[in-house]
């Protein structure tokens, strides 16, 4: 077996520019009804270099989404810091955009109107026609020509997520945050969209932080893969995927000799975590209902606007 990068060794890459850095980051949320504070991530140290595709894998409920929300600026850290180009992240910014697992596109808006959201709320200094051109270009880039005036209910799941990806990329943010974007799609659509995402990201030259619970997806897409342990999440190990790009444009990445090795190693790491997470939830940990609770708590947090960031 080829020597794999052991924990820590792949983390530092002195030659490259650090774009996002989490230092001793601890973050969680409050379960208001149960009067409990739940730590989702503890003492996270993680770096995303400029232009890289960073994938985070881990068992469900390990706090991957929480991390992404922290990078997005939707959730403030409890302890530690999270920085973008050396500056603390204190809210959302035009340099970051997100693709959501449940698409989160507005059902009352057409495809092009949904993508227009990327320009709607911020000063971008673009003329109206220019915005329209950018929207049109984005629609072509994600392959939705002819569906500009369609409503989401007329689209398939894969097409809806193309709208979500297009909306995130339209204003050309530096960082793309993807929260299990293909989790709800069937295997075939998923594979097609993975290939298109790889091509799009290369074209727009983005830094990506991508969350998934699929090992195959992680290896197919990631430059580096961070394995997050079960709750409270910490970075267990970071491994580097040394398979050249483009990986999905033609041929099967699964037939690459490194693929099997990486997959096996990654699975050995993740398996432990999954079993431990499962055991924890079997013993009545908060894992089971945590997603529902979190959504509600975050919802309330938004409407009450504790940080005044809205």
């Amino acid at each position, binding site marked *: 077996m080829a020597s794999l990068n052991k924990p820590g060794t792949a983390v530092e890459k002195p030659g490259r520019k650090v774009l996002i850095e989490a230092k001793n980051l601890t973050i969680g949320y409050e379960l208001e009804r149960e009067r409990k504070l739940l730590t989702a991530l503890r003492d996270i140290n993680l770096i995303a270099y400029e232009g890289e595709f960073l994938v985070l894998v881990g068992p469900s409920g390990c706090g991957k989404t929480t991390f992404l929300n922290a990078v997005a600026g939707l959730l403030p850290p409890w302890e530690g810091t999270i920085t973008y180009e050396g500056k603390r992240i204190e809210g959302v910014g035009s340099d970051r*955009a997100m693709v959501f697992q449940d698409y989160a596109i507005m059902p009352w808006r057409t495809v092009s109107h949904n993508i227009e959201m990327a320009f709607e709320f911020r000063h971008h200094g673009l003329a109206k026609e220019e915005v329209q051109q950018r929207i049109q270009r984005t629609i072509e880039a994600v392959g939705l020509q002819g569906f500009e005036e369609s*409503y989401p209910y007329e689209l398939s799941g894969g097409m809806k997520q193309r709208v979500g990806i297009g909306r995130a990329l339209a204003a050309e943010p530096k960082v793309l945050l993807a929260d299990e974007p293909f989790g709800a799609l069937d295997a075939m659509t998923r594979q097609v969209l993975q290939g298109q995402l790889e091509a799009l990201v290369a074209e727009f030259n983005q830094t990506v932080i991508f969350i998934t619970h699929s090992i195959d997806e992680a290896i197919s897409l990631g430059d580096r893969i961070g394995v997050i342990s079960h709750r409270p999440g910490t970075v267990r190990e970071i491994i580097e995927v040394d398979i050249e790009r483009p990986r999905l444009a033609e041929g099967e990445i699964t037939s690459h000799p490194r693929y099997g090795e990486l997959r096996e190693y990654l699975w050995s790491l993740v398996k432990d975590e999954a079993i431990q997470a499962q055991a924890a939830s079997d013993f009545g940990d908060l894992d089971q209902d945590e997603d529902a609770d979190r959504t509600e708590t975050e919802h309330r947090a938004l409407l009450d606007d504790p940080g005044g960031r809205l």
Partner: protein
Amino acid sequence: MTDTQTPQTATPGSPQPHEPRIRKARWTWERIWRRYSFVFITIVNLTVFFTIWELFATFGPVPSLIFPRFSEVLESLKIGWIGGGNLEGSDNRMLADFVISRNFWETLKIYSVSMVVSIGFGIPIGLLMGARKWVDAILSPYVWTLSSLPRIAIYPILVMFIGIGSEIKYAIIILTAIFPVIINTWAGVKTTEQSLINAARMFGASRSQIYRKVVLPYTLPFVVTGVQLSLSRGLIGVVLAEFLTGATQFGGIGWLVFRAANAFNAPLTYAALLSLAVFALILVQGTRSMEAKIAPWRQVSKT
């Protein structure tokens, strides 16, 4: 999908090399029946219903004082709506030219004004309650109590305050109709999907933009449902209010039903009731298509 096919390509039995994926089906008796059988059955059904009514009232055991012939009801309907009744000298017991139409317009006036007020105040109250915790905390005891209380129970108090003039009608209808609007609007705001809000935040929407561009459109179908409920509740309210009003003439269609029955004018009672039923039917059927028009995205895609 453009519809540019020529008639030839649509002819079954002679398949063209490149038939369009969607073609128009030709009319056949079977298709006509499948599509229009409902209308046909309804016409036959109603004809039979009114014929049996006529026969039963003419030959049946029920006295015509309480169960009139349908033809008499039609006669009252005609006089009540379009006039031309020769009523001089006869003991017409409330039947007069235009008696139904005048009462109907009275009802319609009070009903529409009250509905406009209910919807116009209900929506903003519901929105505020959903969006601001303290407004919710302050108003919810009153809203939930009043919406659960049978409205008729507060009638005596209303009478003490505003008497039995036409103002009390507005009060009763608004108190009946406003709560479904408030509660449904509130529920819409409260259930707005978090990921939609997060998406808008992510793209830099301010708090007020989130309310205008996410919460409000998300709530719209809920508001429509609330308005539908409120329209039919309001109809109950208006008839109730008219039953109880002290008006001596033109107290509305509900008042007419009540007074005509008291005067033992069965044809007029039935005629007024029938007018009300048709109005209610049109109203309810009209609001059923409202959601599809206002919030087309709520439709499941149909082919």
